């Protein structure tokens, strides 16, 4: 089992780098993972990450893409409420890359 070192703590991650224990998440986890993939997290990234975490808290699953784009559109304006904007922020896919930074499990299935 691999681990990542955040705030002096060793946190367990799975084969693909997703946190094994959701409760291990602290904001520095996102910063660390993003840096590892060569991304500096901006305010815009955090808007998405925070929404994912709030949604997960309530529904125990990452939001569907249209739920996410709608929420982001409401918050940041209609021009940003689409997946093009989200892919600009998270080129490996908002569902997968953003979930990873947010400490959520990877969405499974035909997606």
């Amino acid at each position, binding site marked *: 089992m691999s681990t990542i070192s955040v705030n002096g703590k060793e946190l367990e991650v799975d*084969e693909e780098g997703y946190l094994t224990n959701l409760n291990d998440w602290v904001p520095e986890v996102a910063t660390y993972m993003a840096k590892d993939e060569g991304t500096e997290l901006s305010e815009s990234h955090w808007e998405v990450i925070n929404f994912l975490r709030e949604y997960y808290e309530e529904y125990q699953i990452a939001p569907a*893409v249209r*739920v996410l784009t*709608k929420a982001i559109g409401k918050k940041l304006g209609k021009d940003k409420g689409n997946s093009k904007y989200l892919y600009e922020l998270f080129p490996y896919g908002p569902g997968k890359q953003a979930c990873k930074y947010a400490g959520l499990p990877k969405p499974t*299935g*035909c*997606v």
Partner: protein
Amino acid sequence: MAEYEIPELREIPIIPKIKEGVMAHSSPFVAKAPIQTAIGFPGELVDNWEGKLLDKMDDLRGRYRSLQVYLDSCVKCGACTDKCHYFLGTSDPKNMPVARQDLMRKVYRRYKTFAGKFWGKLGMPWMVGAAELNKDVLDDWYSYFHQCSQCRRCSVYCPYGIDTAEISMAAREMMDSVGVGQKYCNEIIGKAQTVGNNLGLPQPALYDTLEGLEEEVEEDTGVAVKFPIDKKGSDILLVTPSADFFAEPHVDGLIGYAKVFHEAGASWTLSSHASEAANFGMFIGSYENMRTLSQRVRKAALDLGVKRIIFGECGHAWRVAYSFLNTLAGPWDFLDQNYPIPQHICEYTYDLIQNDKIKFDKSENDHMTITFHDSCNVARASRMGDKPGGQFDIPRAVIKAACNNYVDMPEDTIKEATFCCGGGGGILTDDLMEIRVKGAQPRMEAYKRVVEEKGVTNLAAICAICKAQFSKVLPYYGFGMTDIISVHQLVGDALILSDAAGDDDSDDSDGEE
């Protein structure tokens, strides 16, 4: 973009020179013990696994006469060798269907035939194409049986009709039975059996998502198109892949189905208990898991008191539904026998079109020129309508009813000769990205041809796996990820909605025959 070479797209596809062992490193993540045990398999490689695996082989040979015939009847004619998209895309000779079959056949010969036992005892099993079963062979199985998407293209060209898909399913079942399973498939099967769908979308999340879609469609069209779920007493139960709720371009297909139902005045519902059409039990050859998943559809149909079952756009789900549903979850004597049991959403829409019950403004899709990707499981393992070839003609007829511009890809890459998207059969996972990209080459070559020669702009499909796979691999070949769309997105975008207000209390679905 990747650490491996992306295959070139050539003008004239040429069969590649073989490169031995180039894909031997490709192997998906192994399922951990909790995933395995949750669906009835040992948690890790068991003691005396060789014996147990061979016992399982006997069990499956006994259950499936086809497997026995396939193991015995290959004459090494070579007709299949250049038919697999994974061989064409990788040049690895073990991706030739005959070589893939031989991974199992050589073990079968060694332990289950007189010649193999005889020469095996003399230490020369290779004299008769037999081989000892050992860990290296098992590793080879794990690697190369996860480089088969069970698309059955090879079986079309085999003079004996040997179906590598069935061998590959049996191999995975044998491996699972000794504790070696694939993480992607087996985790998903577990989720679908507990939560009700592959994504693990719980009921409240489904409700929230559908409510959002209702708002979105009403905003877009001004019409209150409903997305009912768990609505007892509905006529129709729609069972659709959970990706339709979650991902793009899938969700636009779901919106299309809802608009069609709305316009037909149908009383329909989704179910949170059976919120998944996909049945990954088939990919791992596990009859028991396939049955458990299918039983959810039966329970939902009974609980909701529906009269009909319709399946959404999902390739292998339609194979399971069309070919096996009666055995797995029947009898369906409580459903309305005047309709196909089950029915495909394309058949449903097609009937409405034939009977002039729905109308289109085709110009809505004029900014696109469409081609259709026949999904392997629909094309080669099922049918639609009541005529041979309906599974090819009906989706095309639906597209053409909604679009002015339609072109087919080259003849030898469509219909029964269709190339797999490269992600079917349980390999649609990031840890198999290389084989997915390389296996998509033949389809991408055919697509490129119509893009360049006929001005095609988009590829439409009726399978959740195809849609997810293409949105991932299209960019590797220089195309846009949004080139891939749902057939029912085309339908939904061009469908003329009458401005019916408050018709969620719809009348009986007398719309189509």
